[in-house]
């Protein structure tokens, strides 16, 4: 009788102390030293951040052995929907919720994690292409059909362009990459690009669709004179050649981690940490840069899961940022990182 009472008191004390301890560790600069209780975090969403998430999850596991994080790359739309329906603990998305989308039922946060460029990859031997937004728009909408067109010549006055016909390759599956690419064209070349912007657009007949970044990459690689849009990480893995794109400042910028970070730097950040680096200002900004966020609810009712999420996010903002470049993602600019770290502290974790 007495022993169980003492045990129960001990449990209550521990229960009260644990969240204090966890919130305390969340606020400190070294958040991952405390060993967390067993928890499984399920997340899904953006395939763009899948590569980064896998590396972070893999490095996080030995640090917090009792926490299992699973992330499924099934699309930003699916992520946002599953987050609203409570099917997942966190979600990845390349775009914020539209006003017409079903909104999450409780307060939540956008946590930016990384940025990376979307390349305009092509298959032409011995040509280093520079392309303006207008030219890209005309190529992808079918207005320009061969490589020696006048518009391409204007962008590349000194290049030797063959008369090969252009094969346009796009995504058959809907994707945030398509959304960001078409968003760029709509912003930067509104007079030449009339197909609108979204995760799918009605590509003109005669263009080729392929599944996934790798599908597009493979088609571009195998077809002479092909051109397509591919995420930087996948384009590098497939050994593709990419074009330098003219940014809003008028300079032709090649896609790389530095120019992507430049775009993130040049964008205006909203209070909820959403921002739009597409066609951002900045001399060194690459105009087709993709942002991405992790969605998390502000109030975590499950103590173990909540603690795990906080720890995971802090890991992303410490070691995660250093791991990013190793897999061809650019870490966040310092100011944004500071705001993100501060936002993590706003998550409230219930007592266990």
């Amino acid at each position: 009788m007495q022993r169980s009472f003492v045990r129960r008191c001990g449990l209550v004390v521990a229960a009260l102390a644990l969240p204090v301890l966890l919130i305390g560790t969340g606020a400190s600069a070294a958040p991952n030293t405390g060993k967390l209780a067993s928890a499984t975090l399920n997340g899904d969403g953006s395939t763009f951040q899948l590569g980064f998430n896998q590396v972070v999850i893999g490095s996080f596991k030995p640090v917090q052995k009792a926490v299992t994080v699973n992330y499924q790359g099934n699309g930003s739309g699916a992520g946002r929907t599953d987050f609203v329906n409570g099917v997942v603990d966190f979600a990845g998305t390349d775009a914020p919720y539209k006003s017409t989308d079903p909104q999450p039922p409780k307060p939540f946060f956008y946590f930016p994690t990384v940025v990376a460029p979307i390349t305009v990859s092509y298959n032409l031997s011995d040509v280093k292409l520079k392309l303006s937004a207008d030219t890209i728009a005309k190529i992808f909408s079918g207005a320009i059909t061969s490589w020696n067109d006048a518009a391409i010549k204007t962008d590349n006055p000194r290049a030797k362009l063959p008369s090969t016909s252009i094969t346009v390759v796009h995504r058959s599956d809907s994707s945030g990459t398509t959304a960001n690419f078409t968003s760029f064209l709509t912003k930067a070349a509104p007079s030449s690009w009339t197909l609108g912007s979204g995760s799918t657009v009605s590509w003109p007949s005669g263009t080729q669709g392929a599944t996934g970044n790798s599908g597009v990459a493979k088609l571009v690689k195998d077809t002479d004179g092909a051109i397509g849009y591919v995420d930087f990480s996948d384009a590098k893995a497939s050994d593709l050649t990419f074009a330098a794109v003219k940014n809003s400042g008028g300079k032709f910028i090649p896609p790389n981690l530095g120019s992507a970070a430049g775009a993130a730097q040049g964008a205006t950040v909203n209070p909820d940490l959403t921002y739009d680096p597409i066609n951002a200002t900045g001399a060194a900004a690459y105009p087709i840069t993709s942002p991405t966020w992790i969605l998390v609810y502000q109030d975590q009712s499950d103590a173990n899961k909540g603690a795990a999420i906080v720890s995971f996010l802090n890991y992303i903002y410490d070691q995660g940022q250093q791991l990013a470049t190793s897999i061809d993602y650019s870490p966040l600019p310092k100011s944004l990182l500071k705001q993100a770290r501060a936002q993590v502290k706003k998550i409230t974790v219930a007592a266990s």
Partner: protein
Amino acid sequence: MAAIAPPRENESPAPAPKGLGTGSRPPGVFTDHLFRWIALASGLLVLAILGLIAYTTTKNAWPWFRAEGFGIFADNWDPPKGQYGAGAMIYGTFLVGIIALVISVPISLGIGLFVTEVAPRRLRKPIVYTVDLLAAIPSVVYGLWALAVLTGPLADIYDSISSATSGIPLIGDITAEPSPTGLSYMTAGLIVAIMITPIITSLTREVFATTPQPLKEAAYGMGATRWEMIRGSVFPHSRGGVVSAVMIGLGRAIGETIAVALLIGSSQHISAHIFGPGDTLASIIANQFNEATGIQRAALIGMGVVLLVLTVGVGILARSFVNRYDRKSGAVA
């Protein structure tokens, strides 16, 4: 059709075999009734599941039906511009299904006949197991293999056929504008044909195998060659079963998702060019569902409903075909 009523056990002259009992209540009545209700419940489960599917999908697709009305059949799929017509996908589903059947049915029937009539007895099991291996291969593997190995050579073949037939009036139009990557209606139809062949073969083989021996011997007795015997005895006996098998194969063909999504080129426009890209209902759902919200999402679910209706239509057609021929044996007329 109905069973002959079993005799009352007290009148049986021989000692009743074990299990028939000697009690006053006829034995097995309870089991009979119980079993009947269990079997009925299982049958009703199909009703329930399909009803639920029809209900939930129609409910979720309602915004699309309401927004588009008959426009759902229009050939104008353009979500950013607010247009959600599924005409191109309905057309593509039919086209791929027809191509698949045209290629697959003769081959399946041939293999079925080969196994039951032509091949030596000893080879039957190995052949059956080999064809089953075709069914064991997942559809995603078919799609990926075709993508890696077939699309290149196929693109060249389409190109040659296209140039060879370019002058001919009707055929030239159909074979024009081949896709340089090989992704097309034809490629998708070809792979689907390979995928449904083991199903149709397996079922028709079983049907052919149950052709009554006396029927076959009667044909030989009248001096028929083997082919004439097949046409005269096997085919008439098997008509219902073959149509049923083909319907199951067609069902799989129009419902095939991943392999078609990988191979059809995803172009949402109606096109007569079978060597060029297109799209089907199932594959566009797979490709676009994850990112879809709002009416686009409702439209994609609605296309699932359209597929259900399509299958119903095909089923009605097939049923009217089958009902013309008696089922020669078994409990069902």
